[in-house]
Structures are given as structure tokens and as C-alpha cells.
């Protein structure tokens, strides 16, 4: 078949298929209107931390190492009840990226390792913050496995 004729027939196929689609839509029990009445709400995913962070047992002696920076992903009041005093408090918000100033603060600590403690829930805010810090370029980032409840069980809660 010559190419010119094939192209014309291809255009006819498109028209035929389109007409078939319109006809099939008319006989549906729930036809789709030809024109959308309102704009579609396309999904915008939340910022997703994709870095790698290692879980750390709450009994791990590295938690008491002076070269470790303990970061709390909890709010200030919750952080005060942690059995170990966090050097930094960066309350984690699932809907917002960690502020650049907070990341700079962690980087400025020049710690051998950064250990994040969160709420220990599923998902764990500590793990999320740790992964986001790793994603933003912080190295040797860990998170306390089980979060604040596990840390309290291992070290005893603070009054």
C-alpha cells in the first residue's frame, strides 16, 4: 500500500475509532461528559524524604557518646520529657520540608553521627526527619528505633 494512501487511511481509522468511542460513551450507564465541568484535582504528593538513615537501638552506647548529636523531632514540650537531653529540637512536620536553617544547624554541629528521636509511631517522625536530613546531605544519620517511648524504656523518663 502506498504511504500516502496509508496515511489517509490512518486518519480515517482515528476518526472511526473516535466516533466509536463517542457512540460507546453515549450508551454507557454513566457517560462521561464531553467537557469536564470543573478542573480535575490532580494529586500533588507530599515532599518525600528519600535519604538513607540507619535505625539505632535505644540501648546503643553511641547515644551517650559526646561526638553524637541527639536531635529531637518532637515539639519543645515533648522534647523536655526525653530521658536524654537533645542538642537540637526540630519538630517534624509531614507536610513541609525541613527548613534550610535547621539543616545548616545540624551540619554546623560537626558531629560524628546524628541521631534523631521521634514519636516512635508508624510512620515514625524520627525516622522521617532522619531520612530527610540524609537526603539534604547530612552524613551518618541514625534514628532511635521505637522513638521516644523506646528511649524512655531504655533510659528511664525524665521528671
Amino acid at each position, binding site marked *: *500500500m502506498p*504511504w500516502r494512501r*496509508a*496515511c489517509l*487511511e*490512518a486518519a*480515517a*481509522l*482515528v476518526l*472511526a*475509532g*473516535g466516533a*466509536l*468511542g*463517542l457512540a*460507546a*460513551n453515549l450508551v*454507557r450507564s*454513566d457517560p*462521561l*461528559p*464531553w*467537557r*469536564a465541568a470543573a*478542573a*480535575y484535582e*490532580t*494529586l500533588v*504528593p507530599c515532599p518525600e524524604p528519600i535519604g538513607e538513615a540507619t535505625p539505632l537501638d535505644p540501648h546503643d552506647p553511641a547515644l551517650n557518646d559526646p561526638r553524637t548529636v541527639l536531635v529531637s523531632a518532637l515539639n519543645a514540650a515533648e522534647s523536655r520529657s526525653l530521658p536524654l537531653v537533645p542538642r537540637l529540637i526540630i519538630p517534624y512536620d509531614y507536610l513541609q520540608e525541613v527548613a534550610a536553617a535547621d539543616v545548616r544547624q545540624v551540619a554546623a554541629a560537626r558531629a560524628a553521627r546524628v541521631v534523631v528521636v521521634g514519636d516512635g509511631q508508624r510512620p515514625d517522625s524520627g525516622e522521617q526527619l532522619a531520612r530527610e536530613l540524609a537526603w539534604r546531605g547530612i552524613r551518618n544519620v541514625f534514628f532511635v528505633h521505637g522513638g521516644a517511648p523506646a528511649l524512655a524504656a531504655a533510659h528511664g523518663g525524665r521528671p
Partner: protein
Amino acid sequence: MRALGGWRGHAWLAVPLRLYLGVLFLYAAVHKVADPAAFALDVATYEILPLGLVNLTAITLPWIEIVAGALLLAGLRVRPAAIVVAALMAVFLLALVLALVRGLDMSCGCFASQAAESDPISWRTVLRDLVWLAMAVHVAVFDRARLSVAHLIRKGVPP
């Protein structure tokens, strides 16, 4: 290059490629015909078409795929059908590349709707579509309607 194009095996190689593309396009159309509203959302997520064309595309495109796929499978009007498939692949490729360049985290919408985890777009998807585009071009150029309904018609079906 001319020797490669003159290889006599091309006509036979085109047969499995034609059948594969036929099944592929029929399969791809199934979920779109079954749930055109979900497919319309997929189309809208690419953020390429104006709102006025989103539903019309969702209604007609799957049936164009069905017509082209069925003709390829049957071996009728192969060259026009292969041209339609190649043109559709080119359009899909353009949409994919634009979505990837803009960093959209979304489902391809090729074989299922909405679950970005099940069929997420990636450069691998682009590569896959490029292979299918090459197959369609090969069929358009080299298919001689072997093992096809058109071949049976030409020979005359025995009584």
C-alpha cells in the same frame, strides 16, 4: 544499511511484532474503556491538554487503540493501523518526557489508573515506549500481511 533493509526476514519478523502490538494495544485499552473517568484523571494529571479536551481524549483514545490493535491482530489494513500506533506512541512519548522533565510523580496511566506505585513514569517507561515505537515503524515498513486475515482473503478461504 541498504542490505539490512533488504533482509528477507523482515517480513517474517514483522509478524510477531504486529501480533504483540495488537495484543498490547487491546490490553492497554481495557482499563480505559472500563473506567473512562479514572482515565480522564490520568490524562489531566499530565497537565498538557486544556481542560476542554481532557474528557474527549479519555472517551475517544481507548477506542482508537482498540481499532488499531484489532486491525494489527487480524492483519487487516496493517500499514494504516501501524501508522496510528506509531503516531500514538510518539504522542505518549512526548507527554511522558514533558511530565518527567517537570518532575511529576505520577502513574503512567498506560495499563492501570492512578496508583503511581503500580506503573510510575520513569526514563525506563520512555525507553519502553521507544522500543514499541520502533516496533510499530518496523511493522509499518516491512509487514506483508503474512499469517493474517488479509492474506486469507487474498488466497481465498477454502469452503
